[in-house]
């Protein structure tokens, strides 16, 4: 806690700006960097088509990438500290699976649940609502069980059970669904940072900022949890209240991210590890802002790769994050102690 990290943060901030601009400039059509600046800052570009591409497609996508990367990184960090387990993450807790279940019910269940009426009435809104509701439902179940189970490790296992449970329901639903519905669900499962309207992005940002504002309140309890719950209690931290806070923030972030962008794998698990490795600290006063920055940068980079610059194809973002995340986690576990 007596070290300073000004240089680290300065470098990360510069990297964030660079990746943000590069992310906007690359894609099926390359837009020169200086034109990107012009379009963002002045609302003007040499070609009308470039301006349209930037304001309607690339800028929203880059913003979403940052929100998703930062949000998942924070969720992962919180879960790893709370459960004192290096393999914890929003996925392990079953929150993402809860959101997936909501989406599956919407896409696959419509044929026999009469959801098609619901689907058409609420159109673009039904997806995030269904996903968030189911994520919240799973979270409430987890909080209830967490209150009855003393051991945090059991909560982790319960989370795993929830995900197998939801996977089972999804399989049953798929069995009774037609090809088109399954295709829709599978595409959602690939994950996508695109196709969000500005209105949706504002909602996304609003929820994100509230969650982040509260997460800075948790610096002290999270630090105290580094010594385990009993020690945390002995320095005057209200464990129960803060545990609930941590779980609510995590599910809020994971729920909204999964709803809008699909299940994005490995970011929540890998980013906190990367952050600890770079900053070599466990102090959350450093880890929280650092994870936010690194999460945003990594997802912007992943998205650049997914665009396959110069080609017309776009790879699923989920595949890229896994390709990038899985080796990092393996390398971390082999090379370093599996610290939290």
């Amino acid at each position: 806690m007596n070290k300073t990290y000004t240089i680290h943060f300065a470098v990360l901030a510069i990297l964030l700006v660079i990746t943000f601009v590069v992310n906007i400039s690359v894609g099926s059509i390359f837009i020169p960097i200086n034109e990107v600046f012009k379009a963002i800052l002045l609302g003007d570009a040499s070609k009308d088509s470039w301006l349209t591409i930037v304001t309607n497609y690339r800028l929203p996508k880059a913003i979403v990438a940052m929100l998703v990367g930062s949000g998942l990184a924070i969720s992962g960090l919180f879960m790893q500290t709370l459960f004192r387990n290096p393999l914890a993450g929003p996925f392990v807790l079953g929150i993402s699976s809860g959101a997936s279940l909501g989406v599956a019910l919407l896409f696959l269940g419509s044929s026999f649940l009469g959801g098609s009426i619901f689907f058409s009435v609420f159109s673009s809104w039904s997806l995030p609502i269904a996903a968030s509701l189911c994520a919240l439902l799973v979270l409430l179940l987890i909080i209830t069980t967490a209150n009855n189970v003393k051991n945090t490790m059991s909560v982790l296992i319960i989370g795993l059970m929830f995900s197998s449970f939801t996977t089972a329901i999804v399989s049953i639903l798929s069995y009774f669904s037609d090809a088109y519905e399954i295709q829709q669900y599978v595409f959602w499962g690939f994950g996508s940072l695109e196709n969000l309207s500005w209105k949706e992005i504002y909602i996304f940002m609003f929820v994100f900022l509230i969650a982040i504002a509260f997460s800075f309140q948790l610096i002290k309890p999270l630090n105290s949890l580094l010594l385990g719950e009993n020690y945390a209690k002995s320095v005057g931290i209200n464990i129960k209240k803060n545990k609930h806070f941590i779980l609510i923030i995590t599910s809020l972030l994971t729920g909204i991210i999964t709803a809008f962008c699909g299940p994005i794998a490995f970011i929540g698990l890998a980013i906190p590890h990367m952050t600890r490795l770079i900053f070599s600290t466990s102090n959350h006063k450093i880890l929280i802002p650092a994870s936010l920055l690194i999460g945003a940068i990594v997802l912007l980079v992943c998205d650049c790769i997914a665009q396959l610059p110069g080609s017309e194809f776009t790879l699923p973002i989920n595949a890229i994050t896994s390709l990038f995340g899985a080796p990092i986690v393996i390398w971390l576990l082999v090379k370093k102690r599996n610290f939290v």
Partner: protein
Amino acid sequence: MTIGYESRKKTNVVSNNINFSIEKGRLIFILGKNGIGKSTLLKTISKTIPSIAGTILCNGIKIKTLPEQQLATQLSLVLTESLPESLLTVYELVALGRQPYTNWVDTLSDIDKEAVKKALIQTETLHLQNKPFLELSDGQLQRVLIARTLAQNTDIIILDEPTAHLDMHHTVNVFELLKKMVQEQQKTIIISSHEINLALQLADDIILFTEDKVYKNTPKNLIKDNIFDKLFSSEYISFNSNLQQFTFSKG
């Protein structure tokens, strides 16, 4: 007071009819065989678990009604549980003891830094301050954990079997450090331990758990009343009041 573990369905009473008071500035050892309730008593006193019946007063205030934040400025702990792995350095670990005093983002003020440094010097761990705590030996770690309670600046310090993994040299070292803290800083230190022979020499008071009753008295009085004979119901171990030590007879 009755202590034990409560769950929704059943109550598991570990020990009942406990009644004693502890004066300031004493070194108190809690002795008794495994599973008789030493740790349970410490957990109850420190409000880690609630008492089943009865009350605990700290300076005349029921600890049940005392906010956790306030209790944290009066009572600090060294537990037996092993610490979760993390990158914390010794300095950071000791600084976590300042949490009852730090602001909402856990910034260390000059007073906090001073207290941490003082704690490190008193426990002779200043040279370790930048080392990750995972690399410490058991003896070093115990001293660092004691430094953390010193940084927390509480009148009462509770230690649950602080010397369980230590050799005789380090055990004596830790106890001497605690004795010094009692004498120089008027701390009240409560230790549960199996080091009966050392406890007899060092303790100001002993809380002794036997099968049927919990005694609290000075070592001298307990020896005089032949209470130690009741400690182990074994024919192989007996208390030799001439040596003031437990001896092991080969049968």
